[in-house]
């Protein structure tokens, strides 16, 4: 069906998108790589000089990098654990027949639509404030000492906020996946008298494996880039992750060279995850 004419038209139709995305990808990346090899500080303009991989050496051996790297991993790990385990449990619950499914579904998905700066500030103040926050009041009602979240456990606090934003996402996707489980398979298992626990481990979980992988990969890509929540709650501090470290180095300390090296490190980390995700989606495209 494809004549030469339509071929040419198709190429012309795709070309603009490909071109702008190619530029968007290659120009900033090329410049970041170039900057990362320079001694380049905005406070000292005109004195840029080539210094090879020195910026990388500084960035990677800086204790702040190790701390930020650790924080990035902890944040991703904690949010993934909460959202995937919670998501599976809640998806199983919401898959059961009950009254008012539509409304509960709307309530559950709502946090995902809240912009990051709003969720961070509402949690930080209204809920997690050590004196007047709701959590403090609940703790005191049970005779416990309220937690001063952002002073004592800033990373945990940020992780909780981010997990609240992503749990709905995981729940919704896993629920969609559970609902595609064959109804006859459920009935057959029921007729065989399969206990719920083995039904879950031998039928539901394998069926969800793919959706769980997708959730993990997509969330990881977004979670590696968490920025706004940290900016408005702790403004760095003990919750600094890699994106925030790069931001601080560039726009607060004006060290363009060092920050660029950090940016490239972040790109490499993200690409490791992206590699698996793209392969997986590509496999799906064939099916």
């Amino acid at each position, binding site marked *: 069906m494809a004549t030469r004419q339509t071929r040419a038209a198709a190429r012309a139709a*795709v070309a603009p998108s490909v071109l702008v995305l190619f530029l968007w990808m290659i120009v900033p990346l090329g410049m970041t790589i170039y900057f990362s090899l320079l001694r380049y500080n905005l406070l000292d303009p005109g004195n840029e000089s080539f210094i090879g991989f020195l910026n990388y050496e500084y960035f990677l051996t800086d204790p702040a990098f190790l701390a930020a790297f650790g924080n990035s991993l902890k944040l991703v790990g904690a949010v993934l654990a909460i959202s995937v385990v919670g998501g599976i449990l809640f998806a199983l619950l919401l898959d059961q027949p009950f009254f008012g499914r539509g409304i509960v579904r709307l309530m559950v998905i709502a946090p995902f639509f*809240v912009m*990051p700066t709003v969720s961070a500030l509402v949690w930080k103040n209204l809920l997690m404030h050590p004196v007047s926050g709701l959590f403090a009041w609940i703790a005191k009602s049970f005779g416990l000492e309220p937690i001063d979240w952002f002073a004592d456990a800033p990373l945990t606090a940020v992780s909780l906020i981010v997990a609240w934003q992503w*749990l709905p996402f995981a729940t919704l996707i896993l629920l969609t996946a559970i609902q595609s489980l064959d109804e006859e398979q459920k009935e057959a298992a029921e007729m065989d008298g399969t206990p719920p626990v083995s039904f879950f481990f031998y039928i539901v979980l394998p069926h969800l494996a793919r959706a769980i992988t997708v959730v993990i990969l997509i969330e990881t890509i977004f979670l590696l880039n968490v920025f706004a929540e940290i900016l408005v709650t702790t403004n760095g501090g003990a919750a600094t992750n890699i994106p925030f470290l790069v931001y601080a180095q560039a726009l607060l300390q004006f060290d363009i060279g060092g920050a660029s090296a950090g940016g490239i490190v972040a790109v490499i980390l993200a690409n490791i995850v992206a590699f698996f995700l793209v392969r997986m989606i590509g496999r799906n495209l064939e099916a």
Partner: protein
Amino acid sequence: MARAVSLRRKSLTTAAAWLFGFLIFFPILWMVLASFKTELEAFSTPPKFLFFDWTIENYGIVQERSDYLRFATNSIILAVGSTLVSLVFAVPAAWAMAFSPGKRTKDLLLWMLSTKMMPPVGALIPIYLLFRDGGLLDTRVGLIAVLFLLDLPIIVWLLYTYFKEIPGEILEASRMDGATLWREIVYVLTPMAVPGIASTVLLNIILAWNEAFWTLNLTTSDAAPLTVFIASYSSPEGLFWAKLSAASTMAIAPIMVLGWFSQRQLVRGLTFGAVK
């Protein structure tokens, strides 16, 4: 649904599901309640749940003191503008990929997707410097350009999956009837593609509305959308909970409504079709 479920079990699940839904939704509810309190009540211990003097003065004050409408206008312009620009680029591209696929179409799609996975900090520094030198910092044009590039892969991808569902035979038939390429697109393809395009637009507006990395880093006031407006409440002197809550409620309400309408497309859009 053929399975018989006892009423008792259904009641138990109902209670559990509502409890869970309520807990997840609670922070939003609590914020909306606080927005109708006075500052004193918003701060009070023990907290006041429903029995307080309901007031809407916070909403007026937020608009008056910090010009909510200006930020909201920017949010709308940035989200809608970037989505429309993306559509202009994406519709022809997705159309070509869906109906006239070549050997490399799949690779091209995956490559477009992979640009989405580039962490923004990898591009922040050059973009910031280019914007500074080009006078684009804190301008709507500059930000629309960035958001457009962030949106484009998702829009192409989504449109592609929707277009794929349109049977190619219909296009062939119109071609046999002598329709030109232009007529084919306008009269045959577009009407069938409208639902897909609409849900793509909806999802993308939501994502652009909530985008908070580039907006925080590239705008300060003139082009600043609601994400930046809310971030300004993080300074200690801005800590008025009732006003923060009123501003937050106004910042999320429009998009929450859109989001609820588009929750079906959400799964498909955010997993790039990997889960349907």
